[in-house]
């Protein structure tokens, strides 16, 4: 994975020094809160319901064991012993003191980490397929492009005050594991008929209060023109995106209002102009980055055999272990969704354990998935049992990946000042209702996502079952959506009827799963059955 050079490190160190001075001035009273707020936000420090919250960047979700260990140590040293992994592939700490925040950033800088691009109307940290560089179905590792994008976008002076925040996701497989079409820009590494590698650009997707699926704006772009094309996409948005209404300021509104064809035409004109300016980084820079993402030294003698005689281990392998591109290796997903737990939360000890496992068994690499789980991307199959035993002892071996209890949930009203309703207790009650793993596996893949407000940090629009918490005359109320998906078959869920109380929503979901089990054909997933039979049978069961 990418290691900081002296320029990267100097930039991060300078940022820490700058921020330390800003905090000192705030505490001394020479900066007011109005003056300080945009500065702290640019360094990931929010003020939430109970305290300051620090959002730490994990660019494209990739980190090494040293960085992961630091995340655990920060949880112990400066927070209350835990952290929360989010749908943006980063980590948030909920109980940070303002006076500690410069020291935290200084500690992070020692391992090449920071909180840059975690807030503000800039290009945020790029997200990526959490199986990048390991997936058996991958055309090319998307992370070199993500890293180049990071270097281009960080502190980009032209795009530091966009009409609104801007999120880019990048994948290198046909399988979309990054909700790519639901980002401001989604980039997919593809191959054309001649076998050449290129980039497909989707522009204008997003969730929030106006969910939209991004249309294709460029079907095939030579990779060495990526920065120029991004520059063109952003310039058109920066020039024409609305600044008068924050709810209509995202690029999805611009693309929707002028139309994808008109947007494409403007981008192509700007792109042609930019090409004449030679803004593209030299090819050697992309090659330098690519050289840091070469495959680790896989053991050619690694065996595919796994002793599955322990039934609990066999269950976990079946559910949480994926095919790897290298023979004898596998991809392990560590579920942060124990029954009754808080989705995405991990204690300092758990974080450090995962760091140790990555160091000892995964070529020192980990990934944060947008589904709020942790991935060990390169694990020898012969090591799986030892890993599982250590995870199990640390309550990290829940075998529920992509099942109904593998719920994405935002922090909701338990932590977030924007939320209207709590998300976590609903996730806990659903997981407890379906706690029987046999029942979960009988239901099969069922992606359930919960947001505590319309901002959709819990991706409720993209859930096979989505839940949106709203404030109804001072009471929490939960709307139920069916039909969303974030994969290659991306679709947006629809609200099926009146909302429910916290307990009512759990009952409604159970009724929906009963309908699915009664109506499904062959190997249909919940989403497949829903798409085939429509809303009516579900509404009848739930509201009838």
């Amino acid at each position, binding site marked *: 994975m990418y290691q900081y050079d002296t320029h990267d490190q100097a930039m991060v160190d300078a940022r820490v020094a700058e921020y330390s001075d800003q905090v000192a001035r705030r505490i001394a009273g020479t900066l007011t809160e109005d003056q300080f707020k945009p500065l702290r936000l640019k360094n990931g420090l929010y*003020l939430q319901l109970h305290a300051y919250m620090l959002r730490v960047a994990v660019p494209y979700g990739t980190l090494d064991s040293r960085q992961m260990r630091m995340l655990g140590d920060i949880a112990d040293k400066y927070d209350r012993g835990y952290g929360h992994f989010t749908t943006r592939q980063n980590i948030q700490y909920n109980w940070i003191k303002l006076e500690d925040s410069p020291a935290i950033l200084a500690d992070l800088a020692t391992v090449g980490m920071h909180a840059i691009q975690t807030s503000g109307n800039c290009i945020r940290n790029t997200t990526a397929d959490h199986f990048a560089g390991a997936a058996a179905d991958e055309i090319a590792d998307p992370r070199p492009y993500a890293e180049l994008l990071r270097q281009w976008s960080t502190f980009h002076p032209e795009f530091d005050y966009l009409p609104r925040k801007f999120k880019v996701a990048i994948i290198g497989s046909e399988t979309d594991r990054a909700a790519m079409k639901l980002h401001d820009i989604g980039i997919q590494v593809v191959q054309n008929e001649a076998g050449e590698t290129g980039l497909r650009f989707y522009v204008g997707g997003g969730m929030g209060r106006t969910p939209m699926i991004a249309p294709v704006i460029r079907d095939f772009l030579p990779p060495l023109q990526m920065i120029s094309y991004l520059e063109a996409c952003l310039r058109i948005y920066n020039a024409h995106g609305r600044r008068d209404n924050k709810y209509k300021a995202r690029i999805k509104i611009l693309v929707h209002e002028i139309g994808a064809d008109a947007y494409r035409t403007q981008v192509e004109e700007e792109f042609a102009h930019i090409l004449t300016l030679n803004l593209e980084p030299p090819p050697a820079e992309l090659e330098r980055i690519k050289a840091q993402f070469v495959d680790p030294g896989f053991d050619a003698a690694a065996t595919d055999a796994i002793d599955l005689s322990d039934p609990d281990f066999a269950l976990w392998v079946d559910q949480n272990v994926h095919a790897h591109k290298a023979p004898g290796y596998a991809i392990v997903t560590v579920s942060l969704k124990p029954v009754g737990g808080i989705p995405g939360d991990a204690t300092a000890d758990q974080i450090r354990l995962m760091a140790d496992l990555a160091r000892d068994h995964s070529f020192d690499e980990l990934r944060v998935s947008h589904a709020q789980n942790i991935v060990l991307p390169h694990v020898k199959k012969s090591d799986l049992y030892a890993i599982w035993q250590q995870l199990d002892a640390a309550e990290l071996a829940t075998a529920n990946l992509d099942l109904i209890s593998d719920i994405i949930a935002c922090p909701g009203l338990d932590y977030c000042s924007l939320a209207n309703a709590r998300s976590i207790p609903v996730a806990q009650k659903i997981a407890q209702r379906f706690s029987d793993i046999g029942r979960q596996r009988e239901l099969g893949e069922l992606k359930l996502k919960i947001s505590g407000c319309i901002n959709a940090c819990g991706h409720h629009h993209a859930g096979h079952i989505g839940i949106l918490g709203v404030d109804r005359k001072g009471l929490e109320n939960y709307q139920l959506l069916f039909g969303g998906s974030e994969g290659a078959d991306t679709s947006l869920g629809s609200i099926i009827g009146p909302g429910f109380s916290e307990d009512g929503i759990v009952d409604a979901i159970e009724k929906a799963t009963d309908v699915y089990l009664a109506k499904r054909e062959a190997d249909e997933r919940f989403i497949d059955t829903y798409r085939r039979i429509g809303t009516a049978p579900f509404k009848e069961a739930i509201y009838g």
Partner: protein
Amino acid sequence: MSGDRIKVLTGNDLLSGDVTWWTGSAWSRKVDDAATVGDDGAAIAASEEAAQRVVGAYVIDAVREDGALRPTHIKERIRALGPTVRLDLSLRPNDPAAAGWIA
């Protein structure tokens, strides 16, 4: 609760970020210490923010009964209580029913 409806001032401590309540002369971490501010909340908030003691101060509605204070809106009750999913981090207000404030 069916006690007196009052207005109280809340915010976050500048340095720690802790939820804090205006007692009439200082700031307290305990919601039950909050004093009624009547129509003076905005002026107190401005003064206290200028003095670097609090950040993001604002007035909320609450009900006081038998020495316990219960904010009217669920968001403020959660601020007063702590995360409902981490009761080990709860601030434990005086109201004996506080643990069930939200459910």
